[in-house]
């Protein structure tokens, strides 16, 4: 399960890594940081008592912004995870032969599509929060 969810993040990190590699300007820790942050959020997601977290913090305080940020991040990670799972399952259902023609191409397009959709989601989500008066 967690491996499936990790797939788009790993792809993103790998693309980042390759881009840095080929640009010849030296590597940074960013790709590794991406994966590390993702894992940290997933683990935190298991341990933090999310339900009660918001209720205890005073709106407007520094801590409130942090809690809000954590909630939004968690929201995103869970959406990304669910969408990844569903897309990969839909792809598996239509392939009679796991490694047959089109298998790699469709995997690449499916993962690329997830990245695209998560960007669209992020924009839509941000717009919705703006309308509600949250955000800057």
């Amino acid at each position, binding site marked *: 399960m967690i491996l499936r969810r990790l797939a788009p993040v790993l792809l993103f990190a790998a693309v980042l890594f390759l881009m840095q590699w080929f640009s010849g300007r030296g590597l940074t820790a960013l790709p590794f940081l991406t994966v590390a942050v993702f894992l940290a959020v997933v683990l935190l997601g298991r341990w933090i008592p999310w339900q009660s977290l918001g209720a205890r913090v005073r709106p407007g305080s520094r801590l409130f912004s942090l809690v809000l940020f954590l909630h939004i991040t968690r929201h995103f990670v869970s959406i990304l995870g669910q969408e990844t799972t569903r897309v990969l399952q839909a792809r598996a259902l*239509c392939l*009679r*032969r796991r490694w047959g023609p*089109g298998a790699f191409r*469709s995997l690449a397009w499916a993962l690329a599509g997830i990245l695209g*959709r998560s960007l669209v989601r992020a924009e839509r989500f941000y717009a919705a929060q703006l309308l509600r008066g949250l955000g800057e």
Partner: protein
Amino acid sequence: MKPVLEVAGLCCRLGSRTVLRNIGFSLGEGQAVALVGANGAGKSTLLWAILGLLPSDGEVRIFGRPRSRDGLARLGVVFQNPEDQLFMPSLEQDLTLPLLNRGEAPGPAREKALEALEAVGLAGYAGTPAQRLSLGQRKRAAIASVLVSSPSLLILDEPTAELDPRSVRQLTALLNRLPVARLIASHHLEFLQATTTRALLLSEGAIAADGPSGSVLGDEGLLAGAGLI
């Protein structure tokens, strides 16, 4: 009538909630069955459990055999969310993928894809990626993408949710032309009346009624008891 789908003693827990309780039914060749229930009754969960996409207890047999990759590939599944199954750079490639994967030649595969797009009113959109379509058009494309491989059992989750009245009428006519067995989850009662002959009523994760569509879908007391109307 040979059974195409048999479900027995199916139970599913998600987190700490029991979402499906002891579901049992079977579906014969060419049968058209409605899966009806209120929001949250467990329709989607049941479909997912049948497909093996969610952990569940109980027995599921597809075409008389335990679930397998080959069996699943003979199903045509339309998810509630069409974006999940259209990810290639054009509709044509989305539709030809399953055909090419099982070894068909590109020429005939392309022909079938164009035919399926035409059947759902999307002729002329073969080169378009799904992201550039409206939600209803995407849903129709998703339906075309499963019809193209001539499935032996259609599983549709809320096929009419985003469709305008004319598209609903076209889909009704299209489904009624196909002799293939189908299980349609929806709360669009009129559509179910027109496209199915038998209905399973799901209420809080259990089957509350199983009978002819006409009588189950027309029984207001029954539907009200299931929280549907």
